């Protein structure tokens, strides 16, 4: 049984007098411990799918099964409980967190809200989470806005794993990081996956990273699945028009100086 099974998902927006179909009859699955990437140009629907899967927005049609349950039918306490298993990391953790909070507060919230650790136990759990993502425990009292972007993204990952999720949605989670930091965060994500068997829904516009990190990829175009399959097979030989355009547009290290043409 798949960890996540999405069938015929559709989301329309009304903009002015027009209806925009942001996600159009999309179906896919994710297995435990697997990384599925969603890639595509701006407006292709990849972030809308992420928000639908997280139930930050509701679909117009379709079905989402998560850990064997009808995820769209969950309400109230049942939904909150299940959300502990489905976490998220966004592109900009400064926008995702209360900027006045401390690192400890950001990690304390999920432990408290989901009843994972008692008040007395939480400082030790927070220290362990920080250590798990490669941060020093003495970072805990620092304010979120004081630490570096790479440290903040590690805190975001620590927050996501605090509730013991089986799936983390990573929406452009490494896109805003310096390349030297990006490599370390990717290593951390891979380590967590192999240790905890966490699955990732990895949303990215960067085909190089997708190819290196994901097991499978779905290429989206205008809300529809244009192509899907093994990440390396798809990116090495794209069959769809959007796949070929994305591959052609990916920046490549050029070894010789090109003349203007």
């Amino acid at each position, binding site marked *: 049984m798949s960890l996540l099974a999405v069938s015929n998902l559709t989301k329309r927006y009304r903009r002015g007098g027009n209806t925009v179909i942001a996600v159009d009859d999309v179906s896919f699955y994710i297995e435990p411990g697997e990384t599925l990437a969603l890639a595509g*140009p701006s407006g292709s629907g990849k972030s809308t799918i992420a928000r639908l899967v997280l139930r930050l927005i509701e679909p117009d049609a379709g079905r989402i099964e998560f850990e064997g349950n009808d995820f769209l039918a969950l309400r109230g306490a049942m939904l909150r409980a299940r959300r502990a298993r489905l976490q998220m990391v966004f592109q900009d953790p400064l926008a995702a967190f209360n900027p006045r909070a401390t690192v400890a507060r950001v990690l304390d919230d999920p432990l408290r809200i989901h009843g994972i650790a008692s008040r007395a136990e939480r400082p030790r759990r927070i220290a362990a989470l920080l250590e798990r993502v490669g941060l020093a425990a003495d970072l805990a009292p620092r304010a979120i806005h004081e630490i570096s972007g790479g440290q903040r993204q590690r805190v975001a990952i620590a927050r996501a794993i605090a509730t013991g999720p089986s799936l983390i949605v990573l929406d452009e989670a490494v896109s805003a990081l310096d390349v030297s930091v990006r490599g370390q965060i990717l290593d951390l994500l891979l380590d967590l996956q192999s240790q905890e068997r966490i699955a990732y829904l990895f949303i990215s*516009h960067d085909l*190089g990273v997708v190819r290196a990190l994901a097991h499978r990829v779905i290429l989206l175009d205008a809300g529809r699945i244009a192509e899907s399959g093994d990440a390396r097979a798809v990116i090495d030989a794209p069959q769809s028009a959007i796949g070929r355009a994305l591959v052609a547009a*990916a920046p490549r*290290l050029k070894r010789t100086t090109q003349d203007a043409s």
Partner: protein
Amino acid sequence: MSALASIHDLTVTYRRDGNAVAALRNISLDIVAGERLAVIGESGSGKSTLALAIAGLLPASSAVCGRIEWPGSGRPPLLGRDIGFVFQDPSVSLDPVMTVGKQIAEVARTHLGLTWSQAYAKAKTLLERVRLPDPDSALHAFPHQLSGGQKQRVAIAAAIAAGPKLLIADEATSALDTIVQAEIVALIRRLVAEDGMTLLFISHDIALATELAERIAVFRHGQLIELGTTAQIVSTPSQPYTRALLDAHIGLDAAPLLNRAGLHA
């Protein structure tokens, strides 16, 4: 190989919370007339401060030592006329309540002494040159009616409206998706060649820089650590940091990070 701009021992210091922070330290660099020069670096490298210093856009609170000379001209360059500047985010750099046509025409009218009707005609020609679909109706459009890529085309049209010698693009494609980024890079390349402009291309993306630039300057912590032709920088970098930046690029030919054997175990 004459220098369009000669930067000598440039140091720029910002004041932040009562402390002085050096954003650039003792930078000496020639920008050769007609070249495409990329300046690359990570956050805090000083690359954007260099662009702002050259364009004369540093905040008044910054302290500047050293000098920038413009050997080919008897006067300091004027932003808009001699230097065109394209910023990262056109939804911020364009005026949201002014039509696209007027924003471009205003540059031409201010710096070229054209009448409004001449300036609008020039704006229409520029919109055609940056390949905006339907230039006639785009003249009367507001920025919010355009896509991100189209807005950046408008910003480029405004930047080159007065025929500047130097075009500075500061992370001008970083907010765009990969396909639009490639289109904008191709557009910049074509316009620079057609008008004989010098290009200063500021980017965090070393691969993108190698696709566009003839020379690359690598910045780190406010210092210029390496400068060379694109081929030298890519093939025989002298600095370990440059090598690390090259190694950190995850291209379409990179070895997979993933241990596939671990799945479903």
